[in-house]
């Protein structure tokens, strides 16, 4: 189960901190040569005053999606910088379902170098919406699913190398498609919800980006994130032990 962020070449870890990919500035990212692929993803979220079962504060709803490859991730995908600015590329990929929602440079949050042998820099955007707007995105996302699905990768010039977990993914465009939107509730206390969610199978970049965004947007204190991550890793270990035969 190689989906939890193990200490790798790109990630640093300390006992109390949340592991991070190597962050670079936007300027540095734009200076990277043509051997680098750029991916842009968006975290759309809303403050949620609701309570689960009338007692657990939801705090925020964050949209993620189940990707074509069976992993959880943010909406977005590869952007070919020869043809599009980062924002135009991202909106093009998202625009399949988001109507008039357009992300701009003001929504840019970070650039990180991804792990693994492929040279991919991942740009993250974040936009806070009202709960009603977020709900509208969820509703329209399902309608656009089929369109993204039928549109295969455009016959292209150079295809970026497959990133870990992408398999035979698209050369450009959405990482899959708006299969669905999962709204995640991040309860204030470390209820089992968020650690369970973290123990799912993520495309690794998205997991790092989620933890990073929750931290820098002050949606969850770093200690809580670290606790949730540690609990999630434990769950994954236990689940793995149950699945593997003891003789192997």
């Amino acid at each position, binding site marked *: 189960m190689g989906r939890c962020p193990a200490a790798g070449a790109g990630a640093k870890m300390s006992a109390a901190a949340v592991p991070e990919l190597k962050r670079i500035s936007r300027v540095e990212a734009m200076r990277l040569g043509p051997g680098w692929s750029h991916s842009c993803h968006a975290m759309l979220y809303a403050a949620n005053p609701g309570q689960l079962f009338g007692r657990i504060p939801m705090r925020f709803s964050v949209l993620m999606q189940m990707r074509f490859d069976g*992993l959880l991730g943010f909406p977005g995908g590869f952007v070919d910088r020869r043809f599009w600015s980062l924002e135009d590329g991202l909106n093009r990929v998202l625009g399949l379902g988001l109507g008039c929602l357009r992300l701009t440079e003001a929504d840019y949050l970070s650039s990180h170098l991804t792990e693994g042998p492929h040279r991919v820099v991942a740009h993250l955007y974040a936009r806070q919406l009202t709960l009603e707007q977020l709900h509208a995105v969820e509703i329209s996302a399902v309608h656009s699913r089929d369109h993204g699905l039928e549109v295969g990768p455009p016959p292209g010039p150079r295809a970026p190398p497959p990133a870990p977990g992408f398999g035979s993914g698209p050369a450009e465009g959405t990482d899959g498609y708006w299969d669905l939107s999962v709204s995640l*509730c991040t309860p204030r206390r470390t209820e089992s919800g968020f650690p369970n969610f973290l123990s799912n199978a993520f495309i690794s970049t998205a997991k790092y980006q989620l933890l990073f965004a929750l931290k820098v947007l002050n949606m969850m204190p770093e200690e809580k994130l670290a606790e949730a991550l540690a609990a999630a890793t434990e769950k994954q270990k236990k689940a793995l032990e149950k699945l593997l035969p003891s003789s192997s």
Partner: protein
Amino acid sequence: MAGMRRLELSEALHLGPGWRHACHALLYAPDPGLLFGRIPLRYAVLMQMRFDGRLGFPGGFVDLRDGSLEDGLNRELGEELGEAAGAFRVERADYRSSHAGSRPRVVAHFYTKLLTLEQLTAVEMGAPRARDHGLEVLGLVRVPLYTLRDGVGGLPAFLENTFIGNAREQLLEAVQNLGLLEPGSFARLKISAPP
């Protein structure tokens, strides 16, 4: 859930009042679509991300004093999936299995229901408006039935997610028994399934 054992429906229905019953349904439809214009989707199979961050099937607890198992299941589906669930009814003929756990004392009944793709997409489109959306149900997902060229992406990766109870085993059994995968590919799946 500690130690789930399979039992016959008749035995399950005769368990005493100390037992709670839960019913869940795998809704599926043939899907002629192609991923990236070349990989057959074969079927659309619905699961959901639950409030507790785990994947599971729609459904929930039913009270046999209120009606049959199927009455309760269809009511739960309406609450979790919304109005589009009213276009079909899960019946006894769709029943597949029952498993009982001892801690807590819950017996889980599993159903599989074949829909048209139109019925299934109507469910997906209406789900954000369902009563439980954003609370008990965080969102619906489709299960990828294919395996990508790397041998991992698709169904094998999906199975590495976190599932409630024995939903993962229920999914694998249904996928096999209903012939949802490309013939012969179930045996080639690089996954570990408990015996």
